[in-house]
């Protein structure tokens, strides 16, 4: 199963309501990008009826611009605000997707988010069904939203 539409809908919705930013989904990637350069990643785990994780990956410049809009302040450094904001965005995106997948809020539960940043780092997991990566274009630059989710038996 592909989550492309859910990712696109949730991301456009969260960015327009919370950040007052217009973002446009581009064609979903056919092969996931696993290594990120000079970037910030917000990541949150999902558990319950569906298990997986959601991550948002943005180059440092885009992450700073997104955080600036999110918090309504000038950001010129990848500081704790940027890491918190990217973690919180992952949390909100996962929350929005969770609501699209199930009416019962107990079916899918979110962990607490973490943020990763660095000059070059990779994220790996066991390839499963239901893994999507969608790039977005915005005034802040391009960023990626990735969802890996498997329905449990």
């Amino acid at each position, binding site marked *: 199963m592909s989550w492309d539409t859910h990712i696109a809908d949730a991301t456009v919705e969260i960015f327009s309501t919370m950040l007052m930013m217009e973002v446009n989904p581009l064609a979903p990637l056919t092969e996931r990008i696993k290594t990120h350069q000079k970037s910030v990643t917000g990541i949150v785990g999902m558990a319950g009826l569906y*298990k997986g994780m959601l991550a948002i990956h943005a180059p440092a410049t885009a992450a700073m611009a997104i955080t600036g809009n999110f918090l309504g302040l000038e950001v010129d450094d990848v500081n704790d605000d940027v890491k918190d904001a990217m973690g919180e965005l992952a949390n909100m995106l996962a929350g929005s997707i969770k609501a699209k997948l199930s009416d019962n809020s107990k079916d899918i539960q979110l962990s607490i988010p973490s943020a990763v940043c660095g000059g070059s780092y990779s994220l790996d997991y066991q390839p*499963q069904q*239901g893994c999507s990566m969608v790039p977005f274009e915005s005034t802040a630059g391009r960023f990626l939203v990735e969802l890996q989710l498997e329905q*449990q*038996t």
Partner: protein
Amino acid sequence: MGKKVLIIDDSSTMRKIVTRSLRQAGLDFDTILEAGDGQEALQLLAKEGVDIILSDINMPNMDGIEFLRQKSANAAIKGIPVVMITTEAGADILAEAKSLGAKGSIKKPFTPEQVSETLGGLM
């Protein structure tokens, strides 16, 4: 005579870990076959007989429970014992596996001794 085992797990690393445990458990398998999901396992079993099967539960395409269901409906392979390998499967899922013919389960983390105990009686 050497025996054949089939390991079904979507993680190739986990299949290597199970292989290592079988070796350390002193279980003498002639051939170790691997499949990445239930479907691959059924295709393999259509061509090749094995003495015992070790299967993960959560897998893409066809999970361990559906594999058990299809296997139990196929007279040619129905009799091959299956042991489930799980990390956190609940009692309900293990009961379902048992009702579909699974002969036992091994919970991760496991020692070679636990593997040998669980499998020993089935071969």
